[in-house]
């Protein structure tokens, strides 16, 4: 067997292991659906009226169309928690030392975590999309547009997955790993154009919002779902994803190489 075949095989083994974990312990998956759904309902039914009014979208229907892409992005971000927790559990349990003393491809474990994160994100965003449709979301995207939306969601979850694996490898406790993903789950989505357009924000926040990765991601999702032209926003979003994935990958690799506890 060539090295490449072996490492692909080991990664597939570890991916299957992660998916088995998800099936056996579905609470984390349910949580990463529940949180965005609660935000969706909260913003559509409670805060959406005044926000939509303030934004000039008088009807609730238009605000749900504005909001849903942001909720989908948040759904992807909510998945970082499960991945960081799983990576941290692997690292703090004895299993990591066993794998290190076996001739298992380096990085197979991390690849498994990342792959599982992407697959889970596709499932959770599909479920959340379904709930959004139930509460009035009316996308105008073409088939190609949907494919592009799926592609961006996958790329975004791939990028955040590497980052959350790195967080999980470096965190000393599972609770710590979870806490470290909170800025990804909540802070960055709120400081982007996910809930309100950036131009409605105070100057400093607006500048930040315009220069952070979550904004181009949500803007391109929103444009694609509305069937509107998005210019080069998707490329900016994908460039951010590539940069985050690379940084997360390098960080995770350094974390895995550290000595045992």
């Amino acid at each position, binding site marked *: *067997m060539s090295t490449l075949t*072996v490492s692909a*095989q*080991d990664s597939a*083994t570890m991916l299957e*292991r992660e998916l*088995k*974990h998800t099936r*056996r*312990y579905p609470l984390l998956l349910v949580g990463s659906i529940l949180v965005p759904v609660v935000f969706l309902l909260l913003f559509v039914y409670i805060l959406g009226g005044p926000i939509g009014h303030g934004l000039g979208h008088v009807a609730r229907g238009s605000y749900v169309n504005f909001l849903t892409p942001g909720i989908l992005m948040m759904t992807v971000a909510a998945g970082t928690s499960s991945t960081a927790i799983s990576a941290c559990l692997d690292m703090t*349990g*004895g*299993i990591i*030392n*066993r*794998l*290190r*003393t*076996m*001739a*298992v491809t380096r990085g197979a474990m991390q690849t498994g975590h990342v792959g599982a994160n992407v697959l889970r994100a596709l499932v959770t965003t599909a479920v959340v999309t379904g709930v959004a449709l139930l509460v009035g979301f009316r996308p105008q995207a073409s088939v190609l547009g949907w494919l592009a939306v799926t592609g961006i969601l996958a790329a975004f979850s791939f990028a955040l997955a590497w980052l959350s694996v790195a967080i999980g490898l470096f965190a000393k406790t599972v609770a710590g790993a979870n806490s470290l993903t909170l800025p990804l789950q909540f802070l960055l989505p709120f400081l982007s154009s996910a809930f309100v357009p950036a131009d409605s924000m105070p100057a400093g926040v607006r500048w930040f919002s315009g220069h952070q990765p979550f904004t181009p991601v949500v803007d391109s999702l929103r444009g694609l779902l509305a069937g509107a032209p998005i210019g080069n926003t998707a490329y900016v979003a994908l460039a951010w994803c590539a940069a985050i994935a690379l940084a997360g990958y390098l960080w995770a690799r350094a974390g895995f190489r550290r*000595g*045992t506890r």
Partner: protein
Amino acid sequence: MKALTKQASPPPPTPAGAITARGLRKAYGGKVVLDGVDLTIGEGEVFALLGPNGAGKTTTVHILSTLIPADGGTAAILGHDVRAQADAVRAVIGVTGQFAAVDNLLTGEENLLLMGRLLHLPMAERRARAANLLERFDLVEAAGQLPSTYSGGMTRRLDIAMTLMGRPRLIFLDEPTTGLDPRSRHTMWDVIRDLSADGVTILLTTQYLEEADQLADRIAVLDHGRIVAEGTPEELKQRIPGAHIRLQFADAAALNAAALALAEASRDDGDLALRIPNDGGIRSLREVLARLGDDVAVADLSIHTPDLEDVFFALTGGPAQGESQ
């Protein structure tokens, strides 16, 4: 006795040996953990690394099993250098550490099958070997359950079974019975004896002298990162003087009479007892009693041979004794 029979029949050691370590050093942030450890372990041997907590046992195992690099020194496992040929080393070793290295979200059987896949065994072989190990380690009924429902002994058995999926030629067992109840400990001892009977080389670490005495062909006593003594259990015991018999008397008159007959004895007037240096053998015992004659009534007699406990405390008792080795 065990050591003698073992010495008579071991396979001729390969030039490389199973484990060869020279001058291993490791320090964490200025604190020296290993201070020049040499080990030579032959194939098929059961070797115990004995020492108190913090002596450097686990660090030694971690270095030899490629988990962490040493700061200095060299080590080879079955002829493969642990640094330069780490994957070759990993292919022939199995490690069961102090903390259970099982996947708690997979069932016992799934854990074994996971190992089989990571070892790239064909599916039929994976299944056959997993079934065999479940049977051998009495885990058939628990095979479909998560390890979180297992007792400590069951978890440890699953852990060893996972290690054995790869048929390792050399197994590191880092404190394999720490935290187990007496029954599970004896089960684990049987497991270790069976492995040894199969020709597997075993390096085990333990804090328990009895365990080392029971299982090991040779023992190295590790203290403060240095090996302070090495040899068969019998050799180590011989290094400590102190074998004696103790005679207890009913009154001072008997004690005095006996002390006259046995000039070499040291007396303990408070306890009305004599302590006579003696190896505890039948012949020397008979000789002592003959010298005592029939007139002196002995209330009680006990034989004291040094056990590994005495050896251990004598060797690791204090820095001065440690330095003198």
